[in-house]
């Protein structure tokens, strides 16, 4: 299990990195934390001819407050930095709650947020989180930069909207609507494993107690992070109680997903888990929206 040969560049500036990506095109891969890319190379399931190592570019690791009250996070920010950052805990409790679910301590010390998003593992937490919060991904190339909404970014199995010469440089996580409730739940075989199924829920109630904002984002159930749009439709404009939540969860399981079978779980078990987790996350989110303390 030794990686195939490649040429290696470790640019000191983003401009150099972008020039290298432009120059090497399809055969080039950006090396961020390497926690997914390197195992894939060690198994010889990936053989990039050029690696552009982003780890020496100084300005890609930061967590800042965005003008809208959300967060701007540099692509090379390591998981551990987001996990332990007080700004994240304070301004984005959902991101804060998500981080410990990702891999193990050693993985989080090295893995980056931008790398996770670019890798787009359908069973990973961060891509689904980005969809849940309606985040945006800043893609940069020698040609310029653009913001891609998370809803457009993930395009299929390990496939994204990034062009060959583009790098992710920044993530924008808008703030959750004031007074909204949120939750993340996942079922994994072992602690730290990729999820069999995972779910994020965010909801907000209007003055009359009706749901005026809801996002349910699922992972592990398709070829990428997916929204439970039917379930969201069921809830929008409704008063939320156990029955409404059960109806939404059932809709998510039956209409919104067509999950895969693999050695860890059958499609039918995953469908069942979608139902369970959508119920659990909505129930928790509703409690939080009502100002209750929730221990997941």
């Amino acid at each position: 299990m030794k990686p195939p040969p490649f040429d290696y560049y470790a640019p000191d500036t983003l401009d150099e990195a972008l020039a290298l990506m432009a120059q090497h095109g399809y055969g080039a891969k950006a090396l961020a934390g390497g926690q997914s890319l390197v195992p894939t190379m060690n198994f010889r399931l990936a053989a990039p001819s050029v690696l552009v190592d982003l780890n020496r570019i100084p300005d890609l690791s930061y967590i800042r407050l965005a003008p809208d009250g959300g967060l701007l996070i540099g692509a090379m920010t390591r998981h551990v930095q987001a996990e332990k950052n007080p700004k994240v805990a304070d301004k984005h409790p959902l991101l804060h709650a998500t981080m410990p679910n990702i891999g193990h301590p050693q993985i989080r010390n090295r893995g980056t947020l931008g790398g996770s998003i670019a890798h787009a593992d359908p069973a990973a937490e961060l891509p689904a989180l980005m969809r849940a919060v309606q985040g945006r991904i800043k893609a940069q190339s020698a040609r310029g930069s653009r913001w891609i909404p998370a809803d457009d970014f993930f395009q299929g199995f390990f496939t994204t909207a990034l062009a060959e010469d583009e790098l992710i440089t920044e993530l924008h996580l808008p703030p959750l609507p004031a007074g909204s409730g949120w939750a993340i739940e996942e079922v994994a075989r072992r602690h730290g494993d990729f999820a069999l199924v995972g779910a994020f829920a965010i909801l907000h109630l209007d003055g009359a107690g009706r749901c005026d904002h809801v996002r349910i984002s699922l992972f592990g159930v398709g070829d990428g992070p997916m929204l439970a749009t039917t379930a969201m439709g069921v809830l929008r404009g409704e008063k939320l109680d156990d029955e409404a939540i059960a109806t939404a969860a059932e809709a998510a399981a039956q209409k919104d997903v067509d999950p895969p079978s693999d050695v860890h779980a059958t499609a039918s078990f995953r469908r069942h888990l979608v139902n369970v987790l959508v119920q659990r996350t909505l129930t928790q989110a509703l409690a939080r929206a009502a100002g209750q303390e929730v221990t997941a």
Partner: protein
Amino acid sequence: MSQRIPITVRVNGVTYQREVEPRLLLSDFIRHDLGLTGTHVGCEHGVCGACTILFDGQPVRSCLLFAVQADGHNILTIEGLAPDPDHLHPIQEAFHDAHALQCGFCTPGFVMTLKPFLEENPDPSDEEIREAISGNLCRCTGYDHIVDAVHLAADKMKEASS
């Protein structure tokens, strides 16, 4: 493709200058180029944790880094942990006292994971310990004795620093 890149790495306080092929894994570099064979390789896909080293003080899996990436960085391996050949680090002592190792293959990875953990968490709970070592597989001990050893090490480290 036969690019060779000069690197300078500080390992256990010693500076090494070598030329490496970009694809050389840091775990292989440490073990075979530097001869520091205490760092073990169990899976080469980042799950077992046997190859855990401290990279600028942080535990990382050395099988998921290329040696070229270590250029200019500071590494600590199991060989650099004990203060001198006649004394063990408190974590090593505690592993010995609590029978926290059997075959000993995974042990260096556990010990390296625990060093910064105990420095940051001088008085961890069982739950925190189990979470901290959840990225290291041990096939022999069933983990119980390792958890005991971590408590013991915490006590020893507190004693040493008081």
